[in-house]
C-alpha cells in the first residue's frame, strides 16, 4: 500500500537515481519515491502519466502562487485560504513536501497574523515552488528523454 503522504527516510537515495540535474535547492524539494510510486497507475500504451501530472502541477502551481500573492496583498483571507488549500493538495499528491507544509502554515493565517509573517511565508513559498518546479521539470525532461 502506498500513501500519498507517506514519509520515508530512504527516499534521498532513490531521488538521486531518478532526478535529472536540477538546482541545488531542488534536491530535496520533491519526494521522488512518492512521485515515482505513481508509475503503478500507468496504463500501458497511454501517454506518460507522471509527465502529464507534472504538466498539470506546473501550470496550476504557478496560477495558485499568483493567487496567493494577490490575496495577501488584498488581505483577502478567503481567497488565500482557498488557493493555499488547493496548492497543498496538489503538492501533497506529487510529493512536493515543503510547498505543502508552507501552504498548510499559510492556510492557517488570518487577520490576527502580522503582515510581515505572511509576507515572509509567501516569499519562502515562492522560493520552494520555484525549486520544486525545477526538480519536476528535470524529471519531466528525463522521462521524455
Amino acid at each position, binding site marked *: *500500500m*502506498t*500513501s*500519498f*503522504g*507517506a514519509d520515508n527516510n530512504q527516499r534521498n537515495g532513490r531521488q538521486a537515481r531518478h532526478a535529472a540535474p536540477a538546482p541545488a535547492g531542488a534536491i530535496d524539494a520533491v519526494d521522488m519515491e512518492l512521485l515515482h510510486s*505513481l508509475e503503478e*497507475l500507468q*496504463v500501458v500504451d497511454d501517454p506518460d*502519466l507522471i509527465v*502529464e*501530472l507534472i504538466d*498539470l*502541477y506546473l*501550470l*496550476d502551481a504557478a496560477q495558485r502562487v499568483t493567487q496567493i500573492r494577490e490575496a495577501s496583498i488584498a488581505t483577502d483571507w478567503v481567497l488565500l485560504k*482557498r488557493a493555499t*488549500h*488547493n496548492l*497543498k*493538495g*496538489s503538492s*501533497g*499528491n*506529487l510529493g512536493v513536501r515543503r510547498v505543502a507544509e508552507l501552504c498548510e502554515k499559510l492556510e492557517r493565517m488570518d487577520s490576527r497574523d502580522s503582515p510581515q509573517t505572511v509576507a515572509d511565508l509567501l516569499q519562502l513559498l515562492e522560493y520552494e515552488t520555484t525549486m520544486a518546479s525545477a526538480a519536476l521539470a528535470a524529471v519531466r525532461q528525463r522521462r521524455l528523454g
Partner: protein
Amino acid sequence: MRVLIAEDDPVSRRILETLLCSWNYKVTTTVDGKAAWTALQGPDAPSLAILDIMMPGIDGLEICRRLREPPVSTSPYIILLTANRGVREIVKGIEAGADDYLTKPYDREELRVRVQVGARIIELQTKLAERVQQLEVAMDHVKQLQGILPICSYCKKIRTDLNSWEHVESYVADHSQAEFSHGICPSCYETTVRPQLESLEIARTLEGPGK
C-alpha cells in the same frame, strides 16, 4: 457503475480518475461544485460521488445537504474528500449527508475498498428498491378482508362500502381470492333438506303410481 469525481485540483482529479478507471468504474469528472450538482441532477446521474469539500461554486458539504433534502428518491452514495483531518470536519461532513469520508493524503487501497463498500451498498439498495416495487405490484392484486363487517342478523347480507347489501357469498368473492364450491352441511341437511325430500316423497305417494 458510474462514479462522479468533483475536484478542482487538476492533479488530484487526474489521479482519482486514473485510479477509478483502473478499478473498472465509469468516471465522470467535474471541476467545481456547480458542475457536480448539475451532473448529479441528470436523468442518468452517477450513483456514487467522490466530492472534494472545498470547491469553488458550491462546496462539497452544500452538495450533500441539497442531495439529502426531502423528498429523497434516489440519491448517490457520497464519499467526501478533504485535506482537513479534524474530527469536527468529519462530523460536519457526515451530518451534511455524506456516507463516508476520506482525508488527503489518502491511501489508494483504502480508497479502493471504501468505493467498493459504496458500490455494494448501492447494489443492495437497487435490489431492495426492485423488490419493494415487485411487492407493491403484487399488493395491488391482493384483495383483503379486514376490519369490522356490518352483517344483517337475519338474512346475513353484508353492508358494502357503497351502503348497499350483498350476499355473504358474493361479498367474500369480491374481497378475497376465495372461490366457492357448493355443498350441504349435515345440520342443514337434517333441518332443511331432509324435510323437503320427505315432503316430496309423501306427495308422490299420495299421487299414486302412474299419475
